[in-house]
């Protein structure tokens, strides 16, 4: 009997290890031959730990399972049980998705290269090996893929710049710093399908002439670091990485580096400084990292999801990938539904669902059962959206048009107990804590922002204008989006929830 219990950090944080132990203990006690596979997460965090049993080639799901329930599951022969969910693939939440980048996540054994290949892995890489580099770049360009790290820059154009740059050494750097609150797609992908990222980075290397790569993973992700390291070692042993990728005679190799707890190191130039062993201070652009990046050499810096989407683009073609989506947002996006929701997790779908569909329908509203008040989209630099803007379709331009951003596609849902002045203050405080210190409007402005919001909280209505001015100064005078975009959460809170900033209202609430 084959049983799957995820090794994903979220599943483990909810007790998956104890469930896995209980499965082994129970199997032994009952003398049942069980093969236990620690897969990635299917992304349905609300059902974790999700246990699956394979029967007649079909996986049956049970969840959320507590370790104490495992004996009863065995007793029931993994049939009728209050936690039975039926065939995994038939679960509505999963069935409604379009899983391209996450097609294998939660399905395969993350560290089995054989399993990876059996589920469509390496098809994209083999295609890339058979094509000239410029054709690989063209395929990525034509797919319409844009950076999933937040800025939305076309991936193929970035690759083209690096491909054309002349240098003895070029690099592929994967940005796995994933510091945005409400996001975990990079983590899930690395823990659940690490070979997919390795394949994507290798294709990037072949396309641009880079032979060395780094995955910069935040230190808050020890599980992802461990899985990536194990997968890279396995890939090297199998000849997927090294001097001759799959025997092609062309080389690419890859190493993991851990961050050290600085949010700003997710910004690509700060990340490069950090990787070089320096303070994670943001660099002025130009020069572009594509021309003068890691150690001053041409470097592709891409987010995990951007790179992990490349194998399927190569395997199925640019036309296939770009047939999904809306406007200039092509392909699929792994929505990360977080915060106060009934059904939180990772939901991969074509661009274009409205915010309301995501929050009310897919997430099922709040876990607390209270009305949704605000949704912060795109992490700590993203705007707070009120219900009045729930008809905004999920796309880069569509969110920008509402003074917001999709960022790395995380959504943090708040119920009506949220105090938006408090959230605005938190945004300023976070910026003050994480500022790299290079620009005054960010370093000092954020501290002033906290003070100004405290004044407003004390009833000083005149301070609202000061706050607005301060936000404009930060927007215009900051080198990077940390200082430049912190005004998004602050001003959206002020604009859409003015009552929370009015003293009479605040007194009544207290």
């Amino acid at each position, binding site marked *: 009997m084959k049983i799957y219990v995820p090794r994903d950090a979220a599943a483990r944080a909810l007790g998956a290890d104890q469930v896995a132990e209980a499965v082994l203990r129970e199997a032994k006690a009952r003398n049942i031959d069980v093969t236990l596979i620690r897969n990635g997460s299917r992304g349905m965090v609300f059902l974790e730990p999700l246990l699956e049993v394979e029967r007649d080639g079909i996986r049956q799901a049970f969840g959320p399972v507590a370790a104490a329930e495992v004996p009863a599951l065995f007793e029931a022969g993994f049939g009728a049980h209050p936690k039975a969910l039926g065939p995994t693939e038939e679960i509505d939440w999963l069935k409604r998705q379009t899983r391209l980048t996450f097609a294998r996540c939660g399905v395969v054994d993350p560290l089995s290269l054989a399993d990876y290949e059996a589920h469509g892995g390496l098809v994209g890489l083999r295609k890339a090996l058979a094509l000239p580099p410029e054709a690989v770049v063209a395929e990525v360009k034509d797919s319409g893929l844009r950076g999933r790290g937040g800025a939305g820059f076309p991936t193929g154009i970035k690759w083209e710049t690096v491909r054309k740059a002349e240098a003895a050494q070029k690099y592929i750097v994967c940005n796995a710093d994933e510091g945005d609150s*409400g996001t975990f797609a990079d983590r899930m992908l690395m823990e659940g399908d690490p070979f997919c990222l390795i394949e994507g980075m290798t294709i990037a290397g072949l396309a641009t002439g880079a032979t060395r790569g780094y995955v910069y993973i935040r230190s808050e992700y020890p599980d992802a670091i461990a899985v990536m390291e194990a997968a890279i070692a396995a890939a090297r042993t199998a000849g997927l990485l090294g001097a001759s990728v799959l025997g092609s005679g062309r080389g690419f190799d890859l190493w993991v580096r851990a961050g050290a707890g600085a949010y700003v190191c997710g910004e690509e130039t700060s990340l490069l400084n950090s990787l070089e062993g320096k303070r994670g201070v943001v660099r002025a652009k130009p020069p572009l990292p594509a021309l003068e990046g890691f150690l001053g050499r041409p470097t592709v810096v891409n987010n995990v999801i951007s790179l992990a989407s490349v194998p399927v683009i190569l395997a199925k073609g640019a036309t296939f990938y770009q047939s999904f989506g809306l406007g200039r947002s092509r392909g699929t996006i792994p929505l990360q539904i977080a915060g106060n929701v009934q059904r939180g997790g990772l939901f991969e779908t074509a661009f274009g669902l409205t915010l309301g569909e995501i929050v009310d329908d897919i997430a099922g509203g709040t876990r607390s059962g209270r009305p949704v008040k605000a949704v*912060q989209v795109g992490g700590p630099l993203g705007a707070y959206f009120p219900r009045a803007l729930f008809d905004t379709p999920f796309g880069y331009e569509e969110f920008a048009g509402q003074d917001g951003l999709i960022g790395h596609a995380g959504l943090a849902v708040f119920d009506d107990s949220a105090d938006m002045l408090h959230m605005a203050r938190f945004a300023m405080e976070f910026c003050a804590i994480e500022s790299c210190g290079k620009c005054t409007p960010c370093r000092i402005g954020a501290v002033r922002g906290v003070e100004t919001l405290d004044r407003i909280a004390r009833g000083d209505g005149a301070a609202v204008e000061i706050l607005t001015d301060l936000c404009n100064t930060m927007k215009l005078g900051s080198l990077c989006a940390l200082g430049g975009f912190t005004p998004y959460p602050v001003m959206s809170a002020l604009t859409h929830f003015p009552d929370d900033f009015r003293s009479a209202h605040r007194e009544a609430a207290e």
Partner: protein
Amino acid sequence: MAATATAQRTEEIVDGLAGLEGPLLPILHAVQEAFGYVPDEALPKIAEKLNLSRAEVHGVVSFYHDFRKEPAGRHVLKLCRAEACQAQGAEALVAQAKARLGVEFHATAKGGAVTLEPVFCLGLCACGPAAMVDGKLIGRLGAAQLDAILAEFGA
């Protein structure tokens, strides 16, 4: 640990990693792993071996939140303060932990038993409030469970 022993262990670490491209962060992580913090006595050795000034190494150490200037308590409790966890009640847990321990963040309480630290997202945003307790992740942390953890730590 005596200064010379620290320097010696540091030298071994640096020698093992100095060949990397951009070796300083891996070295600092390894030093912290070895000593539980980044001792001042380790810095001159690192600077010398990497051909950097002491001020440069110090500047790097102080930039990153991860690197400790002194040892942590016997247990480390990190509570997520970021937005998605706040939406799920993280603030109340923070207040509870601070009250019970009698300290603010970045401090060690109860005679070295517990160090309390904030963390901004652990990637458990769909199952918050999230915490990391001695390196172990916990999702949907509740008040009773937090009390039990602190009690177990003698705090």
